[in-house]
């Protein structure tokens, strides 16, 4: 189960991975965006306690973030 500390480790790991991958090649665009979306979810679900909230709030944020990330990814293909 995720806790604040492992959440933090994952966040740092994803940040470094994102920066490194984007420096390697522009082909990793989708991957970088997905890493940042994952970080978005870690912060909102773990740090902000969204995982205990009413499904309405969880679904709304999922839809908004996934929608945005997919628009960015597909528009760049």
């Amino acid at each position: 189960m995720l806790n604040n500390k492992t959440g933090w480790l994952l966040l740092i790991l994803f940040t470094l991975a994102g920066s490194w991958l984007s420096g390697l090649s522009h082909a990793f665009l989708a991957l970088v965006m997905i890493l940042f979306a994952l970080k978005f979810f870690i912060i909102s679900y773990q740090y902000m306690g969204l995982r205990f909230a009413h499904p309405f709030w969880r679904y709304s944020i999922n839809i908004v973030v996934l929608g945005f990330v997919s628009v960015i990814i597909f528009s760049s293909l």
Partner: protein
Amino acid sequence: MSSEQHVLSREKNDILHPPGGILIWILIFLEVITFMIALSVFAYMRSRNAAMFAESQAMLNPLLGTVNTIVLLSSGYFMAEAVRKLRAGLLKLSVRYTLVTILLGLVFIAIKSFEYSQKIEHGIGLEYNTFFTFYWLLTGFHLIHVSVGIVILVFIYFSLRKGRYDARDHEDVETGAAFWHMCDLIWMLLFPMLYLIN
């Protein structure tokens, strides 16, 4: 089930009571969607002028950006811990973690200011080109949010020290923390869009 989960699951299935209060969540949605609209317009402009955007993006410093991301994420961690400690009744630790959060927020502002001063030195202002108009507006608005967040956290810090909040009554702290995390959330969208992907 830990005590933390007990406290939170009490409000589990109530649509009107998301963690931190309904007002802050309305605000978070508004902010996140606003920045997403702006970034979508940014992506559209980039698709029409890819070369200029790539050239301008190369003028940014991804290292500073990455360091700043880590600083902001760490401050978010400390704030989350501060709220957790407060829920568990550990007021002293909560105060200390809040202070660390504020300091890391100030580090973020310092690094950002350094980045800004470099840009201004090179004569890259708000109207340098479309990319930098977006760069200044988006990061500027984010920086204003961070500053407002720090003001809120300073208020919370002093209230915590005075013992205004405890394990039972701490909704204001949660609201302030949610505002602080919102800055992280926005940065999670801005950073890759502006600094990394092309």
